[in-house]
């Protein structure tokens, strides 16, 4: 069938989908949608792969030995920093190569579309739609419904939640404050970085895109070791022992996501809107405050909540850099896990999940209110 389509590249380029649809409905997806979406698909796949390969928190809890866990053991159990760093290098190399591939595949494309967009309603057949829905249900069931159901069962009666809440109120408050503070800082930083990226020449923009994506390539365990090595010295001891370390860890770990969200909204803003303001004033901060910020507020809100939700659930970096006397919810869950307090663990997990859900709903509400 594909051989019957003349010059399919040019047709894809000019979006003449009707030709494909007339020949065979699925050609539309195969030759138009798929090539157009391929950079995003590849990018998504790389993100998931990197997320999986660098994470050790889940495998640590499940007692499954993965590569980053070996690094963690070398560092925190055997106190062999040198071995931990040497083991971490191949991991860093792999993730850096993948990030390069990801940046290359996207090449300045926007990650998120904040507008509702136009879709003229070309639909898959009923069978394909049924398959798609079934697939989504299976994935959601396995990754959300079954684990949450299991946790609800383990947690048992409401009194467990009451106990969990009573014993962890301080940690919940601390987690919310630190995550919100970090997210706010990340959003401000991300705005200025993304704004600079957008106003750079294409070559510098590509370099900046790579550099801003790079922190994501650093596994939490390596990031934690790096932060300890840099800040754990007499001169910076007053910073090392405080909340600053956690905030720094969150920023270093999650800012690529905040930048992507804010950058996407800046990319979709008409550049003329700022240029016209330049004709009226030389005050850059006035232009940013009155023109740019109101126009990219959805991106800023999204960036803030992505950072907030990721920071709320962070364990890998926090586990290594958490100063004595401080505890976040994930650390509390981790500690309870080691004491074998399963019901408390389950109850706290549900509480964390509810908190994140509430904040996600808050994001939706705020976005709609701003519209």
């Amino acid at each position, binding site marked *: 069938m594909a051989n019957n389509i003349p010059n399919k590249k040019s047709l894809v380029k000019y979006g003449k989908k009707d030709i494909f649809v007339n020949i065979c409905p699925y050609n539309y997806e195969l030759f138009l949608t798929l090539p157009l979406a391929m950079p995003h698909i590849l990018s998504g796949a790389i993100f998931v792969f990197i997320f999986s390969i660098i994470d050790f928190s889940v495998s640590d809890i499940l007692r499954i030995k993965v590569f980053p866990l070996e690094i963690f053991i070398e560092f925190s159990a055997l106190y062999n920093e040198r071995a931990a760093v040497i083991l971490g290098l191949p991991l860093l190399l792999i993730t850096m190569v993948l990030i390069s591939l990801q940046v290359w595949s996207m090449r300045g494309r926007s990650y998120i579309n904040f507008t509702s967009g136009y879709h003229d309603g070309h639909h898959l057949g009923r069978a394909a739609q049924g398959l798609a829905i079934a697939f989504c249900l299976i994935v959601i069931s396995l990754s959300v419904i079954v684990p949450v159901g299991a946790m609800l069962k383990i947690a048992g009666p409401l009194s467990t939640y009451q106990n969990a809440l009573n014993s962890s109120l301080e940690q919940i408050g601390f987690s919310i404050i630190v995550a919100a503070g970090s997210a706010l800082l990340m959003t401000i930083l991300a705005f200025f970085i993304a704004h600079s990226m957008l106003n750079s020449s294409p070559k510098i923009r590509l370099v900046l895109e790579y550099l801003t994506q790079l922190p994501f390539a650093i596994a939490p365990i390596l990031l934690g070791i790096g932060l300890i090595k840099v800040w754990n010295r007499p001169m910076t001891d007053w910073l090392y022992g405080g909340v600053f370390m956690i905030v720094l860890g969150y920023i270093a770990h999650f800012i690529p996501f905040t930048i992507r969200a804010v950058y996407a909204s800046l990319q979709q803003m008409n550049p003329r809107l700022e*240029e*016209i*303001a330049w*004709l*009226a004033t030389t005050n850059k901060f006035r232009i940013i405050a009155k023109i740019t910020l109101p*126009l990219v507020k959805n991106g800023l809100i999204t960036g803030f909540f992505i950072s907030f939700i990721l920071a709320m659930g962070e364990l890998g970096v926090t586990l290594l850099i958490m100063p004595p006397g401080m505890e976040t919810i994930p650390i509390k869950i981790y500690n309870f896990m080691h004491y074998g307090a399963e019901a408390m663990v389950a109850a706290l997990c549900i509480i964390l999940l509810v908190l994140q859900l509430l904040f996600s709903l808050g994001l939706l509400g705020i976005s709609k209110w701003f519209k």
Partner: protein
Amino acid sequence: MIKIENVSKSYGSIQAVDNVTMTLAPDEVVVILGPSGCGKTSLLRLIAGFEYPDSGTIKMGDQMLSSKHQKLAPSRRHLNMVFQDLGLWPHMTVFNNIAFGLKRSGITRQQIVARTKEILQQVSLQPHQQRFPSHLSGGEKQRLAIGRAIATTPDYLLLDEPFNNLDVILKQEMIDLLLALKKKMGMGILYVTHHLDEVLNLAERVIAMQQGELRQIIEKTQSFNEQELLTWYTENIQHS
């Protein structure tokens, strides 16, 4: 008078503006005519101060506006611009779209309000002053863009194909409004288009542009009708 001398600008391998020399006198309407991609918009952006030229100079009287190494800020050039897509600030009301450029040090709030109301009257938008641009019709949006551009009483107005999407009647209305404002305020206008009808209605001087170069100039002393202009344009542009 704006003096553009031997200005060139390229983007990568594309020569957008190639050794252009021209002038724009105060109170004069110059129309730059040329096909899409000929460098008209790039030239306007250079004059407005959004880009550095690769070579050449742009001066206003004796004041240097742009050269390869220096560039006066767009807001200090005593000019304003209307873009093809108008670029109205969607989050601001009609009133605030116009008032934004007036908020400068030394201007009181009362003065800003008075001047904004005056502009709203000139472009017949008083009843819509609290509306947002998305709630305006095509013609009202054009009037708002023009009103915003003239609010700061610029010496020169640069227009980049602003009436492209309007029907014939509305386009004529806008051109009449523009000429009336020009007469009242005495500003020079540099108007970029690829529509011959706009040239006939507006131009005191016509400059043909192609591949970044100025090809031919018709001075205002020469009278021309549509057929002559079409012949002249096709000879100088399509067949060159």
